[in-house]
């Protein structure tokens, strides 16, 4: 069985359409992850007796179990307790929950890297808790970790292929359907693999550039 250029070209529009769905899934899940991760990171850093433990536990559980199992749990097991979600919603939700755990760790590291003197300064000028976070801590904690967050957005992109398993027709799901319909696997799977590769490598390279530029432009912090 050989490569058929005519067939390859004929399925390209469908695959590109699938890529669009993949990008949308990735973007929503990443936005979810950025917000959820920030919340978890802050709660974990604040050392509130009960809630910080919950946030830490969440991160440990979601980081140490397979994404596929989490996806199955959301899609197959939640209906048993009365929560029925469509494949699309389950997929995006699962991906978002998984990525939040990874991003929480990144946020936590960023928050921990803010010098203690900054905290002491906010206490000495009697700044409210809310303003301490929004005006002092987060503006210093977040910029250095942007490339790391980008890496996890890239991970979300690669992992988004898993949502095809529960029936979302994105890029990988399109290839699966095409394979089932035509019994031709060479073209759809190879093209899909290349599409993932191109987007992901392009993202990796531009993130590295961003990281380099940020290191050059890093403002010099006064010694405390």
């Amino acid at each position, binding site marked *: *069985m050989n490569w058929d250029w005519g067939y390859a070209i004929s399925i390209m529009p469908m695959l590109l359409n699938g890529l669009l769905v993949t990008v949308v899934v990735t973007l929503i899940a990443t936005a979810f992850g950025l917000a959820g991760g920030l919340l978890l990171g802050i709660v974990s850093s604040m050392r509130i007796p009960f809630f910080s433990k919950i946030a830490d536990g969440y991160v*440990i*559980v979601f*980081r*140490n*179990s*397979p*994404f*596929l*199992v*989490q996806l*199955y*749990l959301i899609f*197959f*097991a*939640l*209906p*048993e*307790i009365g929560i029925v979600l469509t494949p699309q919603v389950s997929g995006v939700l699962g991906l978002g929950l998984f990525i939040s755990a990874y991003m929480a760790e990144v946020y936590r590291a960023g928050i921990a890297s803010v010098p203690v003197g900054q905290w002491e300064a906010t206490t000495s000028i009697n700044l409210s808790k809310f303003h301490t976070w929004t005006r002092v801590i987060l503006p210093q904690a977040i910029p250095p970790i942007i490339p790391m967050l980008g890496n996890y957005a890239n991970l979300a992109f*690669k*992992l988004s*292929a*898993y949502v095809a*398993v529960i029936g979302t027709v994105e890029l*990988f799901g399109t*290839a*699966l359907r095409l*394979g089932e319909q035509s019994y031709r*696997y*060479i073209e759809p*799977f*190879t093209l*899909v*693999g290349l599409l*993932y*590769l191109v987007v*992901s*490598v392009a993202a*990796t390279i531009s993130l590295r550039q961003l990281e380099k530029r940020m290191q050059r432009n890093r403002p010099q912090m006064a010694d405390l």
Partner: protein
Amino acid sequence: MDLSWLEASASPLFQGMCTTLLVFFGSIIIATVIGVLVGALRLSRSSIVRGIAWVYVEFFRGVSVIVLIFWAFFVLPLLGIHLSTLVTSWLVIGLNQSAFIAEIVRGGIQAVPRGQIEASIAINLSPLTRLRNIVFPQALPIMLPPYANQLVNTLKETAVVSLIGLADLTFSANELRTHIGHSLEMFLSIGIIYLLLAYLLTQLTKWLETKTRVEPLRGSSANKNRRLSKSLTEGLSS
């Protein structure tokens, strides 16, 4: 509480766990061997070798493992390469993870202070002795924590083999779900099994870290110097 599901599923889940571990150990051996090799090639003096190693790493890090395993499973036979499901799983997960391990190895070696290498050249150590007695013992403790992370990632990644029909833990749970239901209990229990396995792996590598540490926990700079001179004299005597 109805526990009949547990009776019916304990044995298949145990067998599934054994398959998961089989896939894990095979993959991690392939990943470590190739990873160390490629990581070393990334630091080669020849820019062509460095370039090839870079392409290898970017390729296997960039491609999604689920896409790669389907490609290997469906397309390789069409190209005349017939591999069993287990071998396909080992190769796909092993090669994918080797790219990440290569980066860990490269980072670990690069983190060894330049002066160490210069010093060992100055006292005329052969490149192999330099690597074995100076660079590697100091790079190992740096590499172990991210390597531990990668072990857990590999374990999690093995779940993908269920999709090409290898009866691992995830596959068994999914099969049981279609036969006897109880999805919630089924997936929660395999989730806990994965968590326990990951915990065991982390403990194992923590133990290894204490074994390979070359300096005392609260090493002063005097201590550090003593350690460096010790590793240098060891290098000389061998």
